[in-house]
Every structure is written in structure tokens, then in C-alpha cells.
């Protein structure tokens, strides 16, 4: 609980606008990563759609504000719900099968949503984007508002992740990741479980997108679907430890501030030039050499136990753990 207390108290010590902004984004990434982890980590299905939901959430929230006058900070949970319903439809197409079609469909989904944002000009404003009215607040108060809002969303995401992990639902997801055939055989409704996991992850991405739109007071098809957001979500989760509750949070808290400060620490344009390539290299290296992530690897080192390869259902239920060949993409 200690870090939570620190985070809640920090603004009262007079965090300036810059740090409020930095932490706002860190919380956003952490919440999105925890959400992504539910489908990507627990269930083992790599989703490239969360960016699409982030952008979709931005636009849906933005349009509700400009057409209906509903404030985004109030409607974001509803926006999340609407996007989760879209996720259910997408999931129905992609998750009925076990194969690589999920990755392909989720990537296609993100592109399609961006395309629609760009081309349904009468609704979305096209590439001109949508500008949103500013919340007329003192800048420091405004910074505080977004800070606490996203901190709240982050806490919620962690609570949800913990809740899932302790439930039969969570055990079912992990079983699907370990061996979907066996999970199916033991009576788990794998399609339903997968779709629900996907919907939950979409909810968090959409809420983050909605709040982001209000934060920038502007949405356009480029910044609502900025690919580096998706890359960051995935790297943060993997680096932190996918399949764990706190891994993605750790990944976000390490990687986001690092990326932000790199531009101030390195000379001239080096940070910008290597930014993307460096993230890519980190992803490859982590996947190859530390696939369990920092949290789990650290736990193993500290307790000097043989690696349990994340948490397998077998271990949880007392059977000896066995290596299984996974064929899901």
C-alpha cells in the first residue's frame, strides 16, 4: 500500500505541471498494460487491437462531448463499455478459432478503425481531427484532476487483475494459455472466456483513450492511433512480466519515465532517432533472453527456486508441471 499512499500524496507536495503530465501518462500506460495483459499475458493471445480501442474510445468520447455535451471524465466508463461490445463482435470473428487469425484480425481491426476515423469525414472530421472544448480550470488543478483520475483507473485495473487471477475465470484463462485443447476438453467454454478477457482489455484501452482525448483537447487519426502506444504497451508488459498482476505496472513505471527523460539526458537528436529502434531491440532481447520478465526473474533469483514458467494450472492444482508445446500465435 505504501506506493499508493506516496502517489496520492505527491501532488500535495507541489508537483509541477511537467511531473503531473509525466505521471498521468505513466498511469495511463500502466492501466493499459494491465488491461492488455489479461488477453496477452493470462490468456496468451497477442492482441494488436488495443490501440484500435484506444483510438475508438477517443473518438466515441470526443463525439459524445461535441454532439451531446457529455463531459468525457463522466462518460469514459460508458465509452469503455461500448468499445467492449465492439470487442465482443471482433472477438467472435477471431476467437472462435485457435489459430493465428487472432493476431491478424486484431491488427486489421486497428487499421480499419483508423481508416474509418480518417474517412468518415462528416462524423469524425477526417484528418482535420476533432478539437474539444477545454476544461476551464487553473492549469495546476487541471493537472491534478487528470493525475488522480488515471491513478484511479490504474488502481481499478489492478483490482480487476487481482480479482481475475484469484477466480475460476482467471484459472480458466491460464489453462487456455497452457493447453487450449485440454482446457476445452475439461469443460471450459474457451470461446466465451477468451472473448470476455478481450472485452475487459478493450475496456481499459478505451477508457485511457477517452481521457487522453480530453487531456489533449484534440483527436486526430494519427495521434489517436500512434503505433508507439501499442509497442509500449506490449514491451512494458513483457518486460515487467506478463501473466502477473504487477509486472505490467512495473514495466510502465520503468519504461515511460525513461523514455521521457532520455531526450533531456542524451545530446541533441539521438534519443529521438533511436527511440523506435531501441524499443524494438528491447522487445527482441526480452523475448529471447528474459521472456518471463523482470518481476518473475527477480523472484526466481531471490528465492532461488527453479522457474515455474509463470503460473501454470498444473502447479496451482498440485500436479507436476510439464513443458507443453504451444501452437497459439
Amino acid at each position, binding site marked *: 500500500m505504501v506506493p499508493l499512499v506516496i502517489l496520492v500524496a505527491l501532488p500535495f507536495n507541489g508537483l509541477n505541471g*511537467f511531473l503531473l503530465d509525466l505521471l498521468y501518462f505513466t498511469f495511463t500506460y500502466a492501466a493499459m498494460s494491465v488491461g492488455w495483459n489479461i488477453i496477452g499475458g493470462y490468456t496468451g493471445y497477442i492482441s494488436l487491437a488495443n490501440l484500435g480501442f484506444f483510438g475508438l474510445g477517443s473518438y466515441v468520447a470526443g463525439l459524445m462531448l461535441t454532439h451531446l455535451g457529455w463531459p468525457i471524465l463522466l462518460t469514459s466508463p460508458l465509452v469503455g463499455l461500448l468499445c467492449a461490445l465492439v470487442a465482443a463482435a471482433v472477438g467472435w470473428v477471431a476467437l472462435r478459432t485457435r489459430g493465428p487469425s487472432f493476431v491478424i484480425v486484431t491488427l486489421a481491426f486497428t487499421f480499419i478503425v483508423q481508416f474509418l476515423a480518417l474517412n468518415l469525414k462528416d462524423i469524425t472530421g477526417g484528418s482535420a481531427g476533432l478539437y474539444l472544448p477545454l476544461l476551464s480550470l487553473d492549469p495546476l488543478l487541471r493537472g491534478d484532476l487528470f493525475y488522480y483520475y488515471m491513478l484511479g483507473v490504474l488502481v481499478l485495473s489492478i483490482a480487476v487483475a487481482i480479482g481475475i487471477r484469484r477466480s475460476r475465470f482467471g484459472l480458466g484463462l491460464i489453462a487456455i494459455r497452457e493447453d487450449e485443447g485440454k482446457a476445452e476438453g475439461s469443460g471450459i467454454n474457451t470461446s466465451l472466456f477468451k472473448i470476455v478477457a478481450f472485452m475487459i482489455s478493450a475496456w481499459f484501452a478505451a477508457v485511457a483513450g477517452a481521457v487522453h482525448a480530453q487531456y489533449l483537447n484534440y483527436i*486526430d487519426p494519427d495521434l489517436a492511433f500512434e503505433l508507439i502506444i501499442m509497442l509500449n504497451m506490449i514491451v512494458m508488459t513483457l518486460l515487467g512480466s506478463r501473466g502477473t498482476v504487477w509486472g505490467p505496472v512495473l514495466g510502465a513505471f520503468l519504461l515511460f519515465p525513461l523514455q521521457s527523460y532520455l*531526450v533531456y539526458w542524451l545530446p541533441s537528436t539521438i534519443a529521438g532517432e533511436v527511440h523506435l529502434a531501441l524499443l524494438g531491440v528491447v522487445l527482441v532481447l526480452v523475448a529471447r533472453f528474459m521472456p518471463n520478465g523482470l518481476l518473475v526473474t527477480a523472484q526466481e533469483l531471490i528465492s532461488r527456486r527453479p522457474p515455474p514458467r509463470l503460473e501454470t494450472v498444473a502447479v496451482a492444482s498440485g500436479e507436476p508441471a510439464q513443458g507443453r508445446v504451444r501452437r497459439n500465435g
Partner: protein
Amino acid sequence: MRNFRFAKVPIALTVLALTVASCGLGSSSGTPTNNKDIIVGISEPLTGDKSDIGTNSDNGYKVWESVVNSNGGINGRKVKIIQYDNNSLADTAVSQYQKLVTVDNADVLLGPVSSALVIPTEAVAAQYNKIFVEGTGGSPQVFARNFNNVFFVQPATVEHQADPLVSWIKSLPADQRPTVAGYPTNDDPFAQAVIDTVRAAFEGMGIKTGYKQTYPPTQTDFTAIGTQMKAAKVDILVQGSVADQDAAGAVKGYSQVGFQPKVAYFASGPDSASTWLQLLDKKAEATMTSLDWLQESTVPGNKEFVDAYLKLFPNKDNVVPAEAAEAYAAGEVLAAAIKATGGVDNAKLITWLHANKVQSVEGNFGWDAAGRPQGGTFDMIQWQSGKLVIAWPADVATNGTKPVIPKPSW
């Protein structure tokens, strides 16, 4: 929770480190010890998608800083630019302007290139009531929220870029005018704004719309579009292109399918002096666009700017990019306001600029309440015999030349 224990320490440490670092950052990076200097804060895309125009703009700002300081500064105070690279990402740009205002204590702000970056960052400046002068973000969205702290330094807003084309066509005798127009447009707000204005004017003049379609920014293959325009008997092409790439690709495509309009106007493309000729060679002849600034222009202060730029950033073609001029002009406007009001009180600067006109390398004009320029006009330029000349309006045409029509086959 087993793994919470292990996460708690790193997360807490990171948070603590952030707080400590923020104190360090505030005092060490870039804040000058001499508090007589005027600190100007800028965040530009020096890397990423917009790095080319971002670097040009940044160079322009550097030239301005150098010229101002070599002339003794403003009111005796030197200008010091603190500039960060935002990697062409809007979120990063917003974060950097937050830092410039709340940590680096910038006195005044200059904006980044491109409307897409200006729109989110002008809002940050507005929250802190800081003046925000910028030279490239001219799309209507920039002004839609009526921020009074924003000032766009070009002779006119984007929609009016092609006004000279309209006035030229109007000046032609009715039997020489084109009769059918084609409007292929990049899906970009700047391009669309320009083309929509022209189309409205032409339709009012009786020029039929033979083709009107939007193409995606990634479109590179224009043969099908050329075929359609040819079939529609389009004789004046008004293309809403965004860069020399789509414009030049279009010319090549049209040439390959035999689409030969009498007039070929591009919202953007023919203005990139060296690359346009390189890409198209003879096909460039008689192509047209409009510019807010031309390197050879004799506007007051321009020669000094061009010379200073080529000295600081020499290149083998001796070309000064337009974004550099726009940035330089933004600096000039800011400097004029600081000089006139005697200080860096942002509220006073804002009021002064709304009430006055300023002469810069972009022209002589003032602003309305939302920051749109008032009282200036673009120049229509055309490639004639391998050279870029101002062809219209007649009073600023290079050596009194007239626009060439019909365009030779490309």
C-alpha cells in the same frame, strides 16, 4: 500477494527517483544564470515523421536567434532558445511545453511545425496564458477554439492560398478560360481547405467540376485517377497535394496515361525547388502552386535572413527551405512585440500583436482575435524554362512575366 512484494520496491523507488530528478532537472538544464536573457521555449519534431520540416523550422529559429543577438538582442537583452525534440509525437510535444513553462521558466514560446502539432500544444500555452507564435500551422482547426494567445505568421490562412489562381483565371478572356476542372485531393485538412475554396469560386464562374475525389495520404499510384480525369475531359487540374511526393507521383502517373490538362496547379509540390526539378525534369514546365515566401523575394529583411541562413546551414544547392523562413518570421513577430512593449509580459505582448501589423520576411500583416493573419496575400508561382518565378499577381510578378497557358505536354 506474492509478487506485489517484489513490485512494491521498484515502483516506489521509481516514483521517488522521479521526484528527486524533477528537482534536479529544474535547476540544471538550460536555465541561464544571467536572468537578463529572454528565454524562448520551443519543442520541434527533429526526429520521426516530421523530422524534415521540423529540422528546417528549427534551423530557421536558430538563424533568428543568431541574427537578433548579433544586432544587440532585443531591448539590450539577448535571446536564448531552449529547444527539445518531440520525435513528431503530440504527447511528447505537450509534455515538453509543460516542462518549458513549469520547469524551465520560459519567458515566451514559439510553436512547432505542422498544424497537427500546433493544435494540442497551443492549448498548453493557452492554459498558462503564454503567447504562442508559430509559422506553419495554418489549418482552420488551429483557430477554431479562438485562443487569443495564438499568432499564425503567414500572409493568409490556408483556405486562401489559391486565391491568386482564382483571380488569374478570372482575368482571362472567357474564350481562353478552362471549362472543366479536376480536383484530386490528398486526405489532409490543409489540402482540402485550399481545394474547397477554389472549387467554390470556379463553380461560381461556370467552370464545371469533372472530377472530385479524395485520395489517401499513402496514395502513390495516380494512373487510374489520371485515366478518370482524361475521360471527364478535365482541362484544368487543381490538385490538393501535400508534398512533392504525391504531386510528382501524380504528374508521372498522368503523363503515363496521357492526361494533359491546360493548367496544372498543385496545392504543394512545385515549391520544393531542387527536388521538383529532379523528380520531373521537363515535366515540371508550367506547373504551378502558391507560396507564402520565395527565396528571391525582396521583402524587407529577407536578404539578411537568406544570407544568414546559408552561412549557418550551407547546402550545395543554396536552397533555403520555406519552413525556415516561416520560423524566422515567427521570431521576428515575437521580437517586434517584445521591443514595442519593452518586456516579456505575455498579456501585454498578446494585446499589442492583436492591435498592430508587423513586417516580417513573410509579409506585412496583422491578426484577428483568433490569430488568423489579416491583410496579406500569397503569390502564385510557376516553373518557366526550368526556373521558379512569381507569375501572379501582376504587380509582384518576377520581371513582369505572365503565367504560361496552355501547359506544354508532360
